[in-house]
């Protein structure tokens, strides 16, 4: 794939993905993912926590990183993808979050990328590394 050859160069940027987090989206994800932790869906409960309000599921925000990698590497990501990340800070309703990344290493069909997700204030929400074998 032409796109993959381009992305096989160190320093190449992955196509970023930007989403608006809303409480409705968090609630929809809670239903689909079966994660009904009140920290995500119960405003009164969440207000009493260290976060002061509801936050998005980490796996919802991480899905945006995976969407970026799917757009970048196609079925190779689905068949031979690997990711190791840390959740650094929560995404909240009203946040606009952007997943981005760049290629840091390539060798023999192996492409390693630094990936991250930040909110519109620039706060780091997720950081880590992804790898694809083309």
């Amino acid at each position, binding site marked *: 794939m032409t796109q993959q050859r381009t992305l096989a160069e160190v320093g190449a940027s992955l196509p970023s993905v930007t989403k608006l987090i809303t409480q409705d989206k968090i609630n929809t994800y809670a239903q689909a993912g079966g994660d009904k932790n009140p920290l995500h869906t119960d405003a009164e409960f969440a207000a009493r926590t260290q976060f002061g309000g509801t936050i998005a599921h980490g*796996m919802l925000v991480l899905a945006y990183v995976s969407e970026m990698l799917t757009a970048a590497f196609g079925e190779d990501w689905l068949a031979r993808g690997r990711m190791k990340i840390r959740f650094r800070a929560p995404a909240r309703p009203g946040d606009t979050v952007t997943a981005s990344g760049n290629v840091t290493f390539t060798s023999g069909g192996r492409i390693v990328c630094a990936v991250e997700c930040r909110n519109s204030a620039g706060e780091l929400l997720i950081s880590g590394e992804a790898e694809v074998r083309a």
Partner: protein
Amino acid sequence: MPTLASFAKGHSFPPVSFDLTSDWVNGYVAAVEDEAISQLGADLVPPMAVAALAIRALLEQSGLPPGTLHAGQELTFAAPVRTGDSLAVTAEIVSRGERAGWVLMSIDLRVDRGRESVMTGRSTVSFPIGEGVAA
């Protein structure tokens, strides 16, 4: 239902089987607004949907102690998954430690399609010591 706080290192959760119905997959794709997966093929499932399913299987057998935070995630995808596939999820607590009033726990996840592994991963969560033990 017991929470994760009740389990020690080495605890294995019984396998849980899922059928990836089109309704569930469509609901997941709508929830995460994945615009990339549909470019690949009509029946391919986002790999993170498989990861979400694995965690869902865990949550069906164990509640989360109050205040649980998802600290980290490792995922390895070994094969594309399609709508209609039948998957089996297994999980095991591989580490449990305590530090500064918090429990730090890692759980290995494995998703198989028949005899083929399609995803493995490790979830790391933390929760306050003492929370959820008697739930």
